[in-house]
């Protein structure tokens, strides 16, 4: 929509001006990017609020999934990606089950998180999981107390996963390196530790 219509008569220009709400920070590409990655019809949201009503995080925080859905339609990239509430979704999919427009708001949040990560905006706990998996193949690695318990149960000290078969680890690292997630994770964690120190 053009912001000025270029009519020679300034009176008519004022009278007939477009009255839509304009935001200078709107990025239509953002809505499209979210739609492509999330593979859900995210632009169809009519703001009924069923999602926020179903959300276990909403009653105890300022996180409103409906707000993120609106930001998505309006292309408010900056506002979406820098909001710390983005990380309060437990991905329980209650909103997705109840959405009357068959949208998956959870998947919209997930793709927004992906785009935030690409810009280096991501809580470190997510990256620590990446580092743990790069190291051992497990997000929650084994420990000595548990090893002792496993032996008592007649199980092998380490499960038959990458813990017992480290020869499978290079393949996992290959995948993580292919997408450069380990490098990005190390970089952001180091930066945040520097800030904290």
């Amino acid at each position: 929509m053009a912001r000025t219509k270029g009519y020679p008569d300034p009176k008519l220009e004022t009278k007939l001006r477009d009255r839509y709400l304009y935001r200078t920070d709107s990025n239509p590409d953002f809505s499209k990017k979210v739609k492509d990655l999330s593979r859900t019809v995210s632009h169809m949201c009519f703001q009924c609020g069923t999602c926020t009503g179903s959300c276990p995080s909403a009653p105890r925080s300022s996180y409103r999934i409906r707000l993120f859905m609106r930001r998505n339609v309006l292309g408010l990239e900056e506002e979406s990606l820098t909001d710390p509430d983005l990380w309060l979704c437990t991905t329980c999919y209650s909103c997705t089950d109840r959405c009357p427009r068959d949208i998956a708001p959870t998947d919209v949040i997930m793709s927004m998180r992906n785009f935030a990560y690409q810009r280096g905006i991501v809580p470190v706990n997510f990256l620590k999981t990446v580092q743990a998996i790069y190291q051992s193949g497990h997000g929650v690695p084994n420990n000595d107390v548990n090893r002792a318990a496993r032996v008592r149960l007649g199980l092998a000290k380490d499960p038959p996963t990458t813990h017992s078969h480290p020869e499978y680890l290079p393949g996992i690292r290959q995948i993580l390196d292919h997408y450069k997630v380990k490098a990005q994770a190390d970089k952001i964690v180091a930066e945040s530790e520097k800030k904290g120190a």
Partner: protein
Amino acid sequence: MAKDYALFLGCIAPNRYPGCESAGISCSKKVGINLHPLKGASCCPAPGAFGSIDLNVFMAMAARNIVLAEKMGMDIALECNGCYKSIWEVNHKLKHNDDLRDAVNEVLKTVKDPSDPSGKSDMEFKGTIDVWHLIELYYDPKVCGVEKIRDSVTRPLTGTRIGVHYGCHLLKPKKERHFGDTENPMWIEELVAALGAEPVQYRKKMQCCGAGGGVRGYDLVHSLDITNEKMINLHEAKVDAVTEVCPFCQLEFDRGQIEIQEKFGKFWGLPVLHYNELLGLAQGMSPTDLALDLHAVPVDPFLKKIL
């Protein structure tokens, strides 16, 4: 006739609650399900943490685990909702979307299979197997069924009241899954009743445990407040224990209760048992066989009722 499956363990069951693993293997054997270890499997990877960071790497990592089972020529059985979300969903998506499958295979091409002595890399996702949660195999009459579970019980859990927590990623989103109703499902209750216990309905049964989506790591107090709401509702229904089918929910309920005590000053003391552990008890396994001493919240009040 016994059926064979590749057992995908995940992380929390083998590395925090090994009783889930040992009970899963020995209990399912008694009802005609043979589980074989999936050698070289990794984290599923954690759908909250990895999915949030990069959905492409999430799919490639899950696909690698699926390919290991494809090579064994067996369907995957698993015992964690988080793993179900990763493994089942990626298997489903890659089977039905050519573009996603091609992208994943492009990466897997570069991954070598250590079990292949010729060194030829052949980690291609072919889409030849299915993925099942152990609990749906227990319920499926074609594989096991409620009757068989009931027949396998040697020590019925008579006189105990048990609340069931389904967890999120097994059933939801329902449009992609095949379990039907997600507002008030009752089929795990049938499996609990088969053990001789009384399944109890409570408020907001289908609410999330609070751990998922990386929230437990990001904002622990927020996550615990959701858990606390579950505890209030379970307590109100006077249950003796809560059972779930997801070790991550178990971790949140079990260790979470200790953290709730630290942060909010309230101790619920509600025993938390994975359905596998419950089945193990009902089939006569001893609490030490199930490593119930590793639970943060003592299970003794519940055990006293049945032993």
